[in-house]
């Protein structure tokens, strides 16, 4: 025979079960790990199924990383999202969201993970000594990677960046990292810098070369060009001066005969005639 307290205890024990029966229950597929580089880009399908709902279901849609994916709204309880050729930037946190008439939304999330891929970085940075240099790397991939900067010394060995001079500043954000060097030094700073992105799936690196020019670098080509010009001008002027004494004075008989010449000739002829007489 159950006592009154026993029945109360049983009811209390059943309470969570009863209340959970009124919560909407969603069956979601497991998390996926993308391997886009392996060559076998198998299509991935994310699925959600609403098995239990207490209120009238209105519609379903998908969200990625907190933003709604367009053209995914349907009224079915079973919904799918297909990634036909999944790439690294398809990775992220996906949620299937169920909207109800007079109850709050319910959702389930599926994580699509991938190793990070570096999509943006400068191949080289050329700066004059004393200027500020900025090296950066951008990545895609979920979960967001941890960033590390290293400098290459010798063949294949890396060291962490030595910030004893206090000129190096690193800013790390989710998919972005930036290494700023204040007032680059021509003796210690030039070299190959590597940014490394790693998450639990994998890691990736990319390299940027930092070159530092001295203040006087453009001076040598400038002086070279000046020397060439002075030599050419001297050659031309000397050639002209040497030609002048050999040059026959310019012919100043104009092409069109001028009437005055004929009178000149007449005079000369007359004088000669007179003299010969």
């Amino acid at each position, binding site marked *: 025979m159950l006592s009154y307290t026993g029945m109360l205890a049983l009811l209390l024990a059943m309470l969570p079960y009863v209340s959970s029966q009124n919560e909407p229950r969603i069956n979601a597929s497991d998390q996926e790990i993308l391997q886009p580089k392996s060559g076998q880009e198998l299509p991935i399908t994310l699925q959600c199924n609403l098995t239990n709902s207490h209120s009238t279901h209105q519609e379903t849609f998908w969200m990625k990383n907190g933003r709604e994916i367009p053209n995914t709204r349907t009224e079915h309880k079973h919904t799918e999202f297909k990634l036909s050729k999944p790439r690294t930037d398809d990775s992220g946190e996906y949620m299937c969201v169920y909207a109800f008439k007079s109850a709050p939304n319910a959702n389930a999330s599926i994580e699509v993970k991938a190793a990070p891929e570096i999509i943006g970085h400068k191949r080289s940075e*050329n700066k*004059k000594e004393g200027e500020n240099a900025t090296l950066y790397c951008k990545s895609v991939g979920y979960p967001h990677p941890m960033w590390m900067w290293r400098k290459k010394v010798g063949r294949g060995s890396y060291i962490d960046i030595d910030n004893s001079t206090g000129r190096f500043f690193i800013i790390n954000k989710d998919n972005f990292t930036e290494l700023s060097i204040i007032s680059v030094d021509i003796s210690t700073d030039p070299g190959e810098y590597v940014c490394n992105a790693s998450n639990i799936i994998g890691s990736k690196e990319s390299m940027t070369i930092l070159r530092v*020019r001295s203040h006087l670098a*453009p001076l040598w*080509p400038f002086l070279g060009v000046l020397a060439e010009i002075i030599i050419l001008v001297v050659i*031309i002027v000397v050639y002209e001066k040497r030609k002048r004494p050999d040059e026959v004075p310019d012919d*100043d008989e*104009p092409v069109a005969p001028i009437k005055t010449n004929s009178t000149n000739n007449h*005079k000369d002829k*007359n004088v000669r005639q007179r003299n010969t007489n």
Partner: protein
Amino acid sequence: MPSPATTNLGYTPPDGGWGWAVVFGSFISIGFSYAFPKSLTIFFKEIQEYFSISYSEIAWVSSIMLATMYAGGPVSSILVNRYGSRPVVIVGGLMVGVAMVTASFGTTILHLYLCVGVIGGFGLAFNLQPSLTIIGKYFLVKRPLANGLAMAGSPVFLSILAPLNQFLFDHFGWRGSFLILGGVVFNCCVAGSLMRPIKTPASKTTDKNDAGKLDVTPQTAGQNKQKSGCAANVNQFIDVSLFKHRGFLIYLVGNVLMFFGFFAPVVFLAPYAKHQGIDEYSAAFLLSIFALVDMFARPGTGLVANTRWIRPKIQYFFSFAVTYNGLCHMMCPLLPGYSGLVVYAVFFGLAFGMVCALLFETLMDLVGAQRFSSAVGLATIIECGPVLLGPPISGLLVDIFMDYKYMYFACGMMMLAGGIFLFIMNYFNYRWLEKEQKHREVEGLEIGSAKELAANEEDKDNKEEIKLIKEEEVGNSTCKEL
């Protein structure tokens, strides 16, 4: 045959020999003048970031440089009239070089405006005018060819300077590049030293000729004696009476119309291609095709213009070139896809080269080599307006209609208008010139015969005089002997 105006030089131009060295010098000077402002645009992005200014503020550097280059035309002409071509070109080269070197140390954008824009612009103006003038002094028969070869400097230098500037920028940054470019521009001084002044008989025969003989001095000096007051003062420096010259006025009006639509299609070729969805490298390649065709079109046009069929009617050839240009632009929006644009680039390159090669040759043909230096100075300062306004107005058209085809139609219309105007007016001009030539010949015969008579009279008088003097002497000597 060239029109009578051209033969009033008073001497025969060599038409060869050292003239070809002068053409090479002009090639270098003209190349720098036209290509240098355009090639500087490669540095603009970096300078814009360095000084933290907007795009329009940095674009002013190029505009100021072009504006002073055109506005400095009259100043240049005055100096050439006074001192000859060589000193002006050398000074011009020095100015641009020093301006660039100073600009490389500049700390504000104002320094760049002053150094590169104003001083650099004047320096380039001092390069452009004298180079064109001296060709007229050295060549007459082969002048169109010489002009075509010299004007080819512009596309050649642009093709060299554009990649060179990119290379300098990658290795030295904009300051180092400006320093090195300053050195490179000093080559204009080398070009100037090639421009040996030609010894005109006018300077020599003034010693020989006594008063009473025919004046062999240039036309302008003769005209100076007629005017008085401040007009004479201005005329000493620059020949303002050109504004009464019919050919010059025709040239001016036609060119002002033409220049409104001349440069804009070049500026917008790459943006139009990108607008059509073509990638950046292919769009840049279009410009390379254009420059390559232009490079060969200029001397080719000079060669064609030199033939005895075209030379007498060279003004028609120029009108044809301008009209052909206009037709190209009208057709451009109708050509589909990338291959259509390539065809357009080839035809446009040809048209552009033809017009540029003949641009100054026709002016020389109209006003004569003596007055050319003043004419070109006055022409460039008036053309300054449409040259500078053309691209921005076209840009405005593109912005308003959001479509490039209206801009091409507008440019095509302006060039067709200019070409047809030049064609019609030159037809009349040739007829009037022929009439004047016949009139002058008739007058000349009359004057000639009158002068012959007068000279014969003078001769007889002189003979009598000398006879008397000689007889006196003989008389005196015989008296002494006796």
